[in-house]
């Protein structure tokens, strides 16, 4: 291979790069798409956490208090039983339907009049994530030894205080790795947002492929952006976990 070849290869790469990222400021599409992916993930995580914790609270409260509430009867029992059933149905449905299908239902059915497609994605992914967070968190609560609960109640703490002081801190600690994994999974899941035309990172890459007639470079760029984000998130989360563990012991 003489030096002319190398120059030619280099020239070729440069042309490709130019067509993929420079023409029409196409690199900006990736940046904007990435921004959308992050925004969708961030707010979906918020919705997922808040609703998921709420669902987990209902489900585990019912499981833990069923016997005493049944004996007392009245509205407390039936109210919680109703909420518990609704939560169960919700979780089953959400976990049984592919997220892309849910996204399309949100887009074409529930929020047809909504113009801002990011909001639609936030709702779809957020309420999807809630079901998973609920089950992770409920698992964590139920996994705390019941002796911890009984010891709290025997000292005179009511149910709420027992949960707040004793059970939830232990459940958060034990489920934190799984919860943080859910964040990463969610970020990657948002890559299907393009199905309803949302210009997220993946869709931006796809658009560049269509316009530049190049597939390798744009897709590798998209892949690297996801990968770096996941690596950074993993590093941050590991640091958080380590820090919490140090505080506990």
């Amino acid at each position, binding site marked *: 291979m003489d030096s002319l070849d190398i120059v030619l290869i280099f020239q070729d790469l440069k042309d490709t790069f130019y067509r993929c990222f420079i023409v029409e400021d196409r690199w900006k599409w990736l940046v904007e798409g990435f921004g959308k992916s992050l925004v969708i993930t961030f707010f979906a995580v918020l919705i997922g956490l808040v609703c998921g914790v709420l669902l987990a609270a209902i489900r585990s409260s019912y499981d833990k208090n069923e016997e005493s509430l049944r004996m007392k009867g009245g509205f407390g029992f039936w109210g919680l039983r109703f909420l518990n059933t609704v939560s169960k149905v919700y979780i089953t449905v959400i976990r049984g339907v592919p997220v892309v299908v849910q996204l399309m239902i949100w887009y074409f059915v529930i929020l047809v009049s909504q113009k801002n497609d990011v909001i639609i994605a936030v709702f779809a992914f957020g309420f999807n994530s809630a079901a998973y967070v609920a089950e992770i968190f409920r698992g964590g609560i139920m996994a705390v030894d019941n002796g911890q609960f009984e010891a709290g*109640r025997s000292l*005179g*703490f009511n149910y709420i205080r027992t949960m707040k*002081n004793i059970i939830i801190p232990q459940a958060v600690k034990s489920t934190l790795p799984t919860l943080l994994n859910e964040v990463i999974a969610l970020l990657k899941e948002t890559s299907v947002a393009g199905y309803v035309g949302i210009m997220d990172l993946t869709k931006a890459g796809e658009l560049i492929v269509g316009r530049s007639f190049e597939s390798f470079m744009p897709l590798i760029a998209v892949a690297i952006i996801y990968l770096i984000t996941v690596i950074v998130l993993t590093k941050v989360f590991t640091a958080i976990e380590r820090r919490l563990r140090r505080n506990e012991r």
Partner: protein
Amino acid sequence: MNDNKIIRVTGLKKHYFGGKVKALDGIDLDIERGEVVVIIGPSGSGKSTLLRSLNLLELPTAGQIFFNGTDITDKKVNINSHRQKMGMVFQHFNLFNNMNILKNMTIAPVQLLKRTKAEAEEKALQLLKKVGLEDRANAYPSQLSGGQKQRVAIVRALCMEPQVMLFDEPTSALDPEMVGEVLDVMKSLARDGMTMAVVTHEMGFAREVADRVIFMDEGRIIETGTPEEIFTTPQSPRLQDFLSKVL
């Protein structure tokens, strides 16, 4: 009602599976202030169920439980305020894993009795000193031995200044060499006049410390008497049989 009976149990039943299992099958029992009652009996006889019913960790199927003259099985009663006055010690210690020893001991007095943190800590350290663990105040439960955990569990309950202490096999999960240190704490508590209900397989403890021993079998109280009566002149064949196996 304001007599010296701190706890009165009448007709207490606890059934499981719609009555197929009768963990408690009609229990009547009085405990006087300052009395040490030891409950013995074979496995599955309902000892734990009875003890855990006294602070309503188990909800009775039928019967009443009076604490200081109040029927705590009444649905309108706020059980939490009564539980504050009944300390409980578990077989598996159940120290709060997410808190150090000092926090384990102070969180309830601070939140429920509205003690200041300083007051609660002073009291906790004083009690820790009594059981020889003042240097472990900042340790976490996982860093203690079983015997140390159980001593902490006892003084944690004492921080709430209970009127009665309930013990469910407090030494059964301990290595033999640690049983003595826990029993010693319980003995000194009894000497100080604490009202105690103790489920145990430690017959030596029952003999030495109990004012009254109760023998249970199949959810009923079969025989009750002084340690002397129970251990030296047992009346019922079932108690005689039980003692021949455990002594």
